[in-house]
């Protein structure tokens, strides 16, 4: 046992009160003293406080996340590494992950969103994969809220500002506006990278004596206790004063890091590499050592600093952006340093791997922290927090709130109103600010159901989309989660790709409240069941708790990122009708309902429970779409989501190559409002040559397949006698709604 490190002059005394001020509980502080056999120093206390924070340790969620299906025949790379990967064929693997940056984005929208993008990109290239695509899921408050416009402008600007400058195309996403997010916006960022299977990197330290290199931006006081603590507690008046130094993103340095790291990996001199994310130097060093069952010693005097007077505590906890930590093969430091110098980056040797299992930090020749590696990287508490069903009245009350208003509008008026609602309307104002084509892989960018990317030098391709459905989750957190996974899978399958893997970001309120914990557990169960049924392993993810302000939690918002694969990307589909005379058909696995619909949000509707989802039928729908695409039986496929069937039909007509029309017969289904505007029915609108109708019916059997009309050249949308609208006018409403509300061209 080594001697206890010495307290530094001027450091606060460590006691329970100080520990609690650091966000540790009485029991947690006792556990720390027990593990160490002594009281930690102030520096060590800081280390524990971040490493044992909810954000870093997943202490409330870990137990439940174990139920997710994380393996499968296409899953590459064991658990415990930074992000999962799936085999996408021809020797390529796709590495992808989604992560939240909610709290920082609420405080400082531009930089918060920008650094969210930067952070998730580092998670990807640290695995040895070149990032080739980004997505984002954004949830804002309602337009009545005074901060909404400001937050939208800042977040979208930040996502674009960072992504555009690093050269990773932003190819898809989703945006929602709802008063439930007034005090807690959600900014979830996704990135995907491609690697040759044999080039995947490890984050497992090996070889005592191997040097540890620090690469990238110098360390400043940014975000000390930032991401971790902010994301591990509710927002209240006090958070203002705890506000850390805001992290500012530097996408140019990130770009240099991407190129330099990928080039450095090719030398073979890198043993392990990890980005410095939350809890920066501390987490990256202790986690790499922990995975390798080794120790690590850091000389803090060698860490490049932005300001000379940083304390060891600050150096270890800084969350400065654009930094990477590398374990190199001994003797090959110079080789790596030459690569980084080529990219004008400094690579400093700041320590080495040890065999003693200790995580040790030296400062001015003295040991300032000396902890068992496991204590910080593995021994964080795991909680089985109490969960209980909220009083039934809550859910009903929520549903009743939107209930029964005045008379239902006429169908045509309802359609126009829906197309102009910010949740349904075109998100072009947003994605026009994102470079979606750089890297020359984007076959379908934002605008259609899922993005489609090619893989160069191969016939293969990928489809991706991110989805969520907080309204359904608010009514039933289990069914809502299942519905979200199914929607994401459908979106990918509508592009013709086979859903292959999931990453997820689970955004919930305060897990210390049993009702929230219950929502969370039900959400994870829904994700599990749907992922198993669809054969899509969950290869990565992130949990964001404490999304509440002044005691008001957001609706449960599991965000699902689905990645699908094409054997032949030339067979991809878009959502748009193409050829006049084609049959327009719908395939659906359930009956549409006003429950959790945009229609109900706009006009009110009698409260409805969510219908249970038959996962066997969902699987059939997805498989059928893929088969239809692979056999070239259909010319377009579009998932029915917010706004229901009528909106989906209009969207399918908005072909960028020229508006098409559609004529729907007022058939036997009796097109009442719920059929036209209901949601939740897992419905897909497809168009196909007449001669294929028969075989399409067979493929989807036993699902409901119905031919409802035909594609026309006249740019009109007609549905029996109920709706007869000029599509150019509808498109105008759909395109102008967001810019109109955001007061920008």
């Amino acid at each position: 046992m080594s001697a206890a490190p010495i307290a530094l002059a001027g450091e606060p005394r460590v006691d329970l009160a100080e520990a609690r001020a650091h966000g540790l509980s009485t029991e947690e502080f006792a556990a720390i003293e027990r593990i160490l056999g002594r009281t930690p120093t102030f520096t060590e206390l800081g280390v524990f406080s971040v490493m044992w924070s909810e954000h870093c340790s997943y202490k409330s969620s870990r137990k439940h996340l174990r139920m997710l299906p994380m393996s499968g025949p296409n899953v590459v790379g064991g658990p415990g590494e930074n992000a999962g990967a799936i085999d996408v064929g021809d020797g390529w693997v796709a590495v992808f992950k989604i992560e939240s940056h909610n709290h920082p984005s609420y405080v400082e929208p531009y930089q918060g969103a920008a650094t969210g993008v930067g952070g998730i990109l580092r998670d990807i290239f640290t695995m040895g994969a070149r990032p080739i695509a980004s997505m984002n899921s954004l949830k804002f408050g309602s337009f009545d809220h005074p901060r909404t416009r400001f937050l939208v402008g800042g977040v979208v600007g930040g996502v674009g500002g960072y992504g555009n400058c690093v050269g990773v195309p932003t190819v898809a996403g989703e945006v929602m506006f709802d008063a439930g997010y007034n005090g807690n916006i959600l900014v979830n960022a996704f990135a995907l990278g491609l690697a040759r299977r044999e080039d995947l990197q490890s984050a497992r330290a090996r070889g005592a004596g191997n040097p540890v290199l620090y690469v990238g931006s110098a360390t400043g006081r940014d975000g000390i206790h930032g991401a971790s603590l902010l994301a591990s507690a509710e927002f209240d008046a006090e958070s203002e004063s705890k506000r850390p130094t805001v992290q500012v993103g530097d996408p140019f340095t990130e770009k240099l890091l991407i190129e330099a790291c990928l080039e450095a990996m090719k030398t073979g001199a890198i043993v392990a590499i990890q980005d410095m994310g939350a809890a920066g130097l501390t987490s990256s060093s202790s986690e790499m050592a922990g995975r390798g069952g080794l120790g690590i010693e850091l000389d803090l005097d060698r860490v490049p600093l932005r300001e000379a007077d940083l304390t060891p505590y600050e150096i270890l906890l800084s969350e400065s952006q654009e930094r990477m930590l590398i374990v190199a093969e001994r003797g090959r430091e110079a080789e790596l340093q030459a690569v980084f110098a080529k990219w004008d980056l400094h690579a400093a040797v700041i320590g080495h791997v040890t065999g003693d299992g200790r995580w040790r930090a030296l400062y001015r020749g003295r040991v300032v922290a000396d902890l068992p590696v496991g204590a910080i990287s593995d021994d964080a508490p795991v909680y089985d927090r109490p969960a209980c069903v909220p009083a039934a009245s809550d859910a009903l009350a929520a549903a009743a709130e939107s209930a029964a208003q005045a008379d239902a509008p006429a169908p045509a008026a309802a359609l126009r109103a829906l197309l102009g609602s910010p949740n349904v309307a075109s998100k072009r104002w947003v994605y026009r600010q994102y470079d979606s084509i750089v890297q020359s892989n984007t076959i379908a960018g934002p605008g259609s159901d899922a993005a489609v990317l090619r893989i160069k030098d191969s016939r293969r391709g990928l489809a991706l989309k991110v989805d969520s459905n907080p309204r359904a989750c608010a009514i039933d957190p289990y069914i809502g989660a299942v519905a979200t996974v199914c929607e994401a899978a459908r979106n990918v399958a509508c592009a013709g790709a086979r859903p292959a893997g999931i990453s997820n970001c689970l955004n919930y309120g305060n897990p210390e409240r049993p009702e929230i914990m219950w929502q969370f557990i039900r959400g994870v169960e829904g994700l599990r069941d749907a992922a198993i049924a669809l054969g899509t392993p969950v290869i990565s993810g992130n949990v964001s708790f404490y999304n509440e302000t002044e005691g008001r939690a957001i609706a449960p918002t599991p965000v699902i990122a689905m990645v699908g694969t094409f054997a032949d990307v030339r067979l991809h589909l878009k959502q748009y009708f193409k050829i006049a005379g084609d049959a327009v058909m719908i395939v659906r696995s359930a009956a549409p309902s006003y429950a959790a619909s945009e229609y109900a949000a706009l006009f009110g509707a009698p409260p409805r429970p969510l219908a249970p989802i038959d996962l066997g039928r969902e699987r059939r729908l997805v498989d059928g779409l893929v088969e239809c695409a692979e056999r070239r039986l259909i010319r377009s496929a579009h998932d029915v989501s917010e706004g229901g069937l009528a909106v989906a039909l209009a969207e399918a007509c908005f072909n960028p190559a020229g508006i098409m029309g559609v004529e729907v017969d007022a058939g036997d289904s009796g097109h009442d409002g719920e059929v036209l505007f209901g949601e939740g029915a897992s419905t897909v609108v497809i168009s196909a040559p007449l001669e294929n109708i028969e075989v399409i019916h067979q493929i989807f059997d036993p699902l409901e397949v119905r031919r409802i009309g035909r594609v026309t050249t006249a740019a009109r949308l007609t549905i029996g006698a109920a709706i007869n609208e000029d599509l150019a006018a509808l498109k105008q409403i759909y395109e102008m709604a967001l810019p109109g509300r955001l007061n920008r061209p």
Partner: protein
Amino acid sequence: MKWGVVRFPGSLDDADAIHALREVLGQDAAMLWHKDEALGGAECIVLPGGFSYGDYLRCGAIARFSPIMQSVARFAAEGGLVIGICNGFQILCEAHLLPGALMRNRSLAFVCDVVTVRVENAATPFTRAARTGEILRLPIKHGEGCYVAPQEELRAMEERGQVLLRYVDEAGVASDAANPNGSMRSIAGVANQGFNVFGLMPHPEHAVEKALGGEDGRRIFASIIAGGARAASRVSG
């Protein structure tokens, strides 16, 4: 034909330009590193899109000092062909190899879209495969593409035919609505007085494949290649 694509540390569309030239158009294209001086015998230099040095100050302001840009300036002075796309256009203006400057878009927002541009002068090495008046559909993606120059200079440039591309609507008419960034006189691309240096905000290298951004960008590359072939035949003949 031999091409050199310059890679600055923050270049982004460098690999796209190489891909378009080599894989799609079958050209001999090499990547040139900004810290080097050699142009590797290239007959046409491409300054690609991206954020050469992060471009936090002014786009292209820092790139012009790199060693390779000194060679590019000499090459241009000797009549060599240089095309600057997006950030490359900004660099050429900052390096005074082209007149004018590129400022922040009128909307103050980055814009990624497909625009229609009209070829204003087809009698140049960069446009000879097109017709004057022809309309091309090309992608744009930039935050600072608003072209400005003093009025007298603009007038002189127009008279000399240096404005090669102008933003227009589908019908071929220049208008405020069809101008994505507020450029003066809807200018999308200009050449120098010697017509051997060309800068444009649209990305022809992202429009060479039907499945991606269409094929109208080929017009620009085909023009240069045709000129290269002519030059070669002049030399050999």
